[in-house]
């Protein structure tokens, strides 16, 4: 296999490329990587390009696409109230649930990072809800958040607080959704915990010698040391939050009425749910493609902004 036969140098670039491929592991690499290469072209590259094209068309699958220029994008931002509602709701959901989730996850991870008994068991308890299927989670919380006699409201009553119409009033639907998203932060806790365990103990000891208290330890040692992990969780969290689909869909999509998908007065209409409705209930594929591209641009802009800003506060070893 490794016997290289000396051949006179060729001026043909293709021949030269071929020969270099044979000499290195290039051919084998091409073969081993071929599943991903084919998959990337088939399931990512082609669809991305195609959806950009579709986003400039009007297309209902039954008849061929008709080019409409920027009309889809204009309609989205100028005439589509449901789109704007979904965009606003999703922005609120993301801006509240992501930082809140990071904060709660960090607190849990800091607590678990102490030498407490049963740490592995606690970690498992925090992680487990994240792998419960969304349909089960959604139905379970419709039960728990029931206004009359639901677990949460009865507990609230018992401690002297009023029962709240969590899922049935426009004012409480979004807070409920944000609260429920916290139930799934287990993986974030686990990733934080792994980051915390990598912080060298020496640093804490040195800071303590210098007279740092517990809060200063967290602020001056822990946070800077795990800042790359915070950035990672932030970006992953943003991407996931902007695409949230299953939970709001199960919670708020009315089975009896296909037009009612966003909860009371569409107060919890999420971007992805609206996109699903446009694509697979109304079969307006061109319009849905435009919506998908707007979402993609938002996700890329936010991710890049997070990465760019991170230069200021993220500390790499």
């Amino acid at each position: 296999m490794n016997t290289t036969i000396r051949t006179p140098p060729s001026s043909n670039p293709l021949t030269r490329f071929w020969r270099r491929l044979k000499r290195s592991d290039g051919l084998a690499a091409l073969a081993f990587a071929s599943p991903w290469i084919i998959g990337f072209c088939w399931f990512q590259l082609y669809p991305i390009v195609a959806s950009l094209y579709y986003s400039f068309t009007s297309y209902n699958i039954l008849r061929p696409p008709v080019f409409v220029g920027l009309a889809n994008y204009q309609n989205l931002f100028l005439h589509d109230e449901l789109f704007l509602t979904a965009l606003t709701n999703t922005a609120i959901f993301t801006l509240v649930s992501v930082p809140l989730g990071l904060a709660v996850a960090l607190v849990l991870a800091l607590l678990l990072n102490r030498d407490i008994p049963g740490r592995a068991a606690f970690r498992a308890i925090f992680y487990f809800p994240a792998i419960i299927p969304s349909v089960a989670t959604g139905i379970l919380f419709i039960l728990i958040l029931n206004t009359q006699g639901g677990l949460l409201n009865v507990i609230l009553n018992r401690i002297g607080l009023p029962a709240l119409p969590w899922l049935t009033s426009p004012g409480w639907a979004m807070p409920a959704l944000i609260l429920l998203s916290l139930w799934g932060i287990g993986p974030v806790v686990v990733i934080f915990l792994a980051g915390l365990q990598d912080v060298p103990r020496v640093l804490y000891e040195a800071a303590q010698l210098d007279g740092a208290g517990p809060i200063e330890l967290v602020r001056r040692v822990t946070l800077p040391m795990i800042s790359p992990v915070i950035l990672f969780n932030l970006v992953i969290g943003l991407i996931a939050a902007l695409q949230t689909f299953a939970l709001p869909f199960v919670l708020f999509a009315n089975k009896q009425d296909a037009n009612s998908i966003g909860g009371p007065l569409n107060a919890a209409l999420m971007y992805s749910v609206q996109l699903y409705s446009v694509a697979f209930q109304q079969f307006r594929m061109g319009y849905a493609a435009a919506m998908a591209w707007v979402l993609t641009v938002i996700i890329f802009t936010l991710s890049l902004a997070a990465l760019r800003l991170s230069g200021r506060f993220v500390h790499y070893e």
Partner: protein
Amino acid sequence: MAQTSSKRIDFTATPRERATPSRGQSRWLEALRQPLPFLAVVVFAIIFALPVYWMLVTSLKSLDEVFADPLVWWPRQLIWGNYPDALQQFPFWRYLANTLTIALPVAFGTTISSAFVAYAFSRLRWRGRDAVFYLILGTLMIPNWVTLVPLYILFSRMGWLDTYKPLIVPAFFGDPFSIFLLRQFFLRQPQELVDAARIDGASHLRVFLQIMLPLSRPALVVVALFAFINSWNDFFNPLIYLSTPEKYTLQVGLFNFFGLHVVNWPGLMAAAAVILAPIAIIFAIAQRAFIEGISFTGLRG
């Protein structure tokens, strides 16, 4: 960079955790001396576990106990019959068979294809390798929604709508997260093994099949389990690609069952618990490997 961090990760147990039994007692003493953090963890754990308890206990209640005030923390009589009743009210066994028809090939396909690709990005030397690897990781940032419409149209032209092909076939072309996980694992295996085999004239295919795969069994299991659970839990793809009710998966089936029987809460919770059970069992058995796998993702720095 990624290589150095991967050295610290052991899929079976971290050194710190292995050391715990001998220190168990001092941990309890410490918790007694400083009870606040421990109590806080306990309170959070109760909040996180309570909904699951409520699912299980509701599945064994009678209808009039579901919304009773005061709360029924333990039913007067455990009604195990809710389980067979619930499973009869929707074609559970058929949906189970459908779900497995999808999830098992997906787990297999994801693992084997990702392992192949991971080998190309860890054990083979070629120009542009790392750049392409970052491209693979970069695709994780592409929202599924942007590829959805063209893929749906493409699958519909290929006659794949209302079949399991759109749910299974893509799994055989590598998954970025799994490729990443396996690559890190392959990189940790001693290069001398590969070199020795290569000098003896083994092809890369043989090195991969006979050295790398057997050495990487723990990582392969993690990848297969993640893929299985993701496919088992998938709601969205079956929802859009399957239209014949007989072909539904458990998740879509449960969603429809919910639409039809919204008052039968014990039955619904029984169905939800049954659908959750395999996931819970896998998690209980492979919990550590699972959490190591997740921890691993955050450490790429």
